[in-house]
């Protein structure tokens, strides 16, 4: 129910000081092998992830996230998939009508570790990089500025809209709107909650369009940035190595098959 936070943890660590693009490259150098080139390797990718967590000094927040978001998801998926995925001969466990086979358990384990790798590597990126820093670095490298505008202004609008929604819910409840009883009443209460929220925020669009137009939003000239993001030689070399590693993993995949 909390929309007004990003995962970013403001501490000083080697990972925080890396260029955002390098961290994005790190994320994809985890995900591409885990899902495409070397899927058998996915469980072992947990090791570099844990190392990254400690280098980034975000252990507390990361394990917190792991407990709240990742573990419930992957445990549920693991149990469901080992119970229900079809195929496989070697029955390990028999629970009435359900058979748990070695094959389905294996495939569930690999799927779950791939999900773990994906969510964890994105989580580390988000824990160590502020979204606006990532966006301004990508914009400097040629991403149209409008994308940065959309992401950053959404992150600013969301808490406001969240607050507005809470106000509207409280106001309509104080007028006797039923948000807790029977199904039909709850459907009926959707319109008085959604209506004021949506129309209120759509009205602001026109004003905002005039405001950003006046500040040269559609100007084609190159814009200067107030906040320079460093991109030292170390980052460039690291990105080069990551690209080579990913290509090597695809070559290895073709060679093995």
């Amino acid at each position, binding site marked *: 129910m909390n929309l007004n936070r990003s995962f970013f943890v403001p501490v000083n660590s080697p990972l925080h000081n890396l260029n955002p693009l390098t961290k994005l490259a790190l994320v994809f150098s985890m995900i591409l092998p885990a899902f495409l080139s070397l899927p058998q390797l996915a469980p072992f990718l947990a090791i570099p992830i844990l190392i990254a967590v400690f280098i980034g000094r975000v252990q507390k927040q990361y394990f917190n996230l792991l407990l709240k978001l990742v573990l419930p998801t992957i445990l549920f998926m693991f149990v469901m998939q080992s119970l229900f995925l079809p195929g496989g001969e070697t029955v390990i466990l028999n629970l009435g009508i359900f058979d748990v086979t070695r094959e389905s358990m294996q495939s569930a384990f690999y799927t779950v570790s791939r999900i773990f790798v*994906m969510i964890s590597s994105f989580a580390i990126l988000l824990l160590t990089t502020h979204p606006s820093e990532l966006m301004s670095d990508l914009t400097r490298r040629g991403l149209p500025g409008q994308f940065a505008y959309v992401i950053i202004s959404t992150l600013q*609008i969301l808490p406001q809209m969240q607050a507005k929604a809470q106000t509207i819910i409280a106001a309509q409840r104080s007028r006797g709107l039923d948000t807790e009883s029977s199904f039909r009443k709850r459907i009926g209460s959707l319109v008085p909650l959604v209506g004021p929220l949506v129309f209120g925020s759509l009205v602001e669009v026109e004003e905002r369009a005039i405001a950003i137009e006046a500040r040269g939003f559609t100007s084609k000239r190159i814009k200067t940035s107030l906040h320079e993001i460093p991109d030292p030689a170390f980052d460039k070399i690291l990105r080069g190595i990551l690209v080579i590693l990913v290509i090597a993993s695809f070559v290895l995949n073709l060679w093995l098959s």
Partner: protein
Amino acid sequence: MEVISQNAVYFAVVAVIMILLFAWAYFTKRIQKDFITMTWVLIPVAIAINLTIGQIVLVLKLPVYLDSIGTVLVGVICGPWAGALTGALSNIIAGIILDPGWFPWFPVAAAIGATAGVMANIGYFKNWWKVVVTGFVIAVVATVVGTPISIAIFGGISASGSSIITAFLLETGRSLVGAVLTTNFIAEPLDKIATSLLAFAIIDGLSARYLSRFPRGENAAVEKGQKQTQMIIALVVVVLLILFGIFILPSLTAG
């Protein structure tokens, strides 16, 4: 591991088609025409609407998500490309602030926005029963796009409540693809028809002067007819579509 290489080929083909389509629309200036300043300003608001209404629906404990109302809205009044961008960025924002597990679903959200835009362009967002048809088409597209992602990345059974249906269907002996496809087809239409109807109600409440500021504002010009006959037609259409679904699905998923 064979399944994964098949998926890689499938995703590569889809990606190439999307890039060709994008290049065509870009060089014929179709995209640039839709992305005026009003569009760029509407997109963040639409994403915020998606996420906030999604949260309100969670509070009300309704059996739908309704987390793409803003996406459909942008698709209708700013065109399919803007709708697709709204959907994709909406999932990326949800990944940034709620749970990175949202990232892989961005093609589904993009397809929802694009479909809403295409349907609106051919005039299917002008009265209640046409909007119901649009909602159904969006649900079909979301099913087709979502099933491969669900299988390739989440192994078919993800952590959502509808996975129970998938598990049940697998236990009755269906193939994995068939089970996931059927599950999505059961879960999606109600949600997407309700989403489209709510988006239509919002557009209906906006003034013509306001809508005309957007690139495809004329898509939303509501046809005034007799409300009662329209409601009857809408109901008949829904029943027919559901019958069609029940009739066509077993033959689709038999393999």
